[in-house]
């Protein structure tokens, strides 16, 4: 059993796709995905607030679903397809309509919650291109913001939704 224990506790090699780029890294099993992204891949756009799933700052998408990266172990992301806030702007550096919306509508102050807000809103707009203000509020209810009072954020998501609908036409 000791032999097995030593084996299972050792660094694990995982391969994951982040923002369309493949990475192979060694991780200790107890390392959270948020820490793999920030400390190993140096993608520090994903913020860490509470580390128990409440604040939403660490939200990313994993295989197309919004997920708390502080509530997934890095080893569990082996073979996963992940998008972080760094993956939002297009290849040529043009801001995502949501990023533009947060800029135009004052959707942020300190910006700590912003990456998680953007990733959550991005998933919302993919599935609901024309959300009501109520639906936007419900969708971002899992993301805490200490600064904005949410008004600007809701405006920003509405702005982006409109922009994306116009682009799609």
């Amino acid at each position: 059993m000791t032999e097995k224990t030593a084996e299972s506790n050792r660094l694990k090699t995982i391969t994951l796709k982040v923002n369309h780029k493949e990475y192979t890294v060694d991780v200790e099993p107890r390392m959270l995905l948020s820490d793999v992204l920030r400390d190993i891949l140096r993608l520090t756009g994903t913020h860490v607030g509470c580390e128990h799933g409440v604040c939403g700052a660490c939200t990313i998408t994993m295989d197309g679903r919004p997920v708390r990266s502080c509530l997934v172990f890095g080893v569990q992301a082996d073979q996963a397809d992940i998008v972080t806030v760094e993956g939002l702007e297009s290849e040529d550096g043009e801001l995502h309509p949501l990023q533009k919306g947060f800029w135009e509508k004052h959707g942020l102050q300190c910006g700590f919650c912003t990456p998680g807000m953007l990733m959550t809103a991005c998933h919302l707009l993919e599935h609901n291109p024309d959300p009501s203000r109520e639906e936007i509020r419900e969708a971002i209810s899992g993301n805490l913001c200490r600064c904005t009072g949410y008004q600007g954020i809701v405006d920003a998501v509405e702005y982006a939704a409109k922009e994306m609908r116009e682009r799609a036409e």
Partner: protein
Amino acid sequence: MKPAAFDYYKPETLDEALSLLDEFGYDAKILAGGQSLIPMMNMRLARPPVLIDINGVPGMTGIEVGDSEIVIGGLTRHYMVEHSAEIRSSCPMLAEGIKLIGHSQIRSRGTIGGSIVHADPTAELPVMLTALGGKVTVVSSGEERELTPEELFLTYMTTTIEPNEIVKSVHFPVIAERTGHAIEEFTLRSGDFAIIIAAASVTLDEEGLIESAALCIGGVDGVPVKLDDVTDELIGHAPSDELFEESCAPITDMVEPEKDIHASVEYRKDLCVALSRRVLKKAADEAKLA
């Protein structure tokens, strides 16, 4: 806040997972969605020496709707149930109640089996399982057994599931004819854990009188509380606001919630009465339409 070190195993079959549980006993914890276990590990309230990640075990995810029973694999994630059209028509309460679990980011990972085993008395799934009279199938090496909610939930965060057992599937009845379901909860913020939850099912006979009913409340005790004394009184009567008002009033004396910083005992009792009235009425209205 970082978790303490642990040994990580990722079995590829159910048998392999079960033999790891046999080998490590109380040292091992199953990792399913991680949405309750990982927060506790991050805060070091839990420091299991061994984690057995069952996310690679085949055959434990999926929804099967039969004539009378819905079988949901223990590893099925909340969002899958939430977005299942089949669940919405075969067990409306389940679809509605699952949506009340945390936020979409939590429902992406959290599993049906994990919620049941975590056994938080204010969690939606234990209350729905009790209200609807569902069942849970658990397996260990060479054995399988079925548990009713009454046999399953012991007290706060504690069930009768043994450390060598895995929840393989969770079973709910398909909604019967002339039946309506309803679940409602009071939370401080959308997505938060509920302060009080009430869930009800009402079946009408061909004349529109109440043939059977069930009512269950979460947040007043260590386990979901089924109020048969209330629903027994309803049988044979036509559903009406007065009927539900009268039959729910005594709930104040039937439940013994505790107070905390969020709400007093009196307030919680009021919530029990109000939410019970509301879910019974809503379920009866649905039954009329069915």
